[in-house]
């Protein structure tokens, strides 16, 4: 394959990837049934999560970085 051919191929590939990526859709608020499912929450058992974070900070000196507030509910 010539150098030009390779370049054309590369450019086409890059364009294709770009277009696929741009195809991402926003999930609308009323389409979040699956996201709001309790099984989507990382720490479903709040007490257990608190306990885990307690011993992690006590034994391992690690704390923080345990996800964000709100879990999986996509309500707002």
């Amino acid at each position, binding site marked *: 394959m010539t*150098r030009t051919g390779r*370049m054309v191929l*590369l*450019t086409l590939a*890059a*364009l294709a*990837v*770009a*277009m696929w*990526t*741009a*195809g*991402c*859709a*926003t999930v*609308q*608020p*009323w*389409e*979040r*049934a699956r996201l*709001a*499912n309790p099984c989507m929450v990382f720490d479903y058992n709040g007490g257990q999560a608190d306990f885990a974070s307690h011993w992690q900070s006590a034994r391992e000196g690690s704390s923080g970085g345990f996800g964000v507030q709100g879990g999986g*509910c*996509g*309500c*707002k």
Partner: protein
Amino acid sequence: MQTLSRVFTATGLAAVVLLFGLTASPAALDVRGAVAGQQAPALRLPTADGTYLSLADQKGNVVLIDFWASWCAPCRHAFPAIDQLFVDFRSRGFRVIAVNLDEKRQDAVDFLVARPHGIDVVFDPRGDSARAFGLTGMPSSYLIGRDGTIRYAHAGYTDKVLDAYRLEIERLLSEPAGGEHTR
């Protein structure tokens, strides 16, 4: 060296296309939510028994349109409170249309069976009405004045907003039915 610069050019071009694609995607072009002062979008949806309920038929009444789904915790919380609003104000010309947005009707039916209610529930599994109103969150509710314009819009629900609802409904109900913007 020339090849390298071409690679950069191609990557740059791809980035431009990507950015363009992202901004031009339908989601980015979404109109913002329906706002107070606008005429309410048309709403005509089936109830549980298959008869259609239309917002246009409610002209002259103050209408609360509540968009909800059984999977949404604050919606579940708001449902009985909104039903109570209906009980309190119905005699003065207040109606509630609760638009259910569950994809599976059975989820909504299971929820409703467990909660006796007086408000009208209509079903929109495809979410066309939600799109028309441009919902920004769940639950969303819109208070429609007697003249059919949106007067108040709420997204989300906590018990604290209930007093605001009462105040707003009271205010809208006290407006004359044949006000200046009517028909």
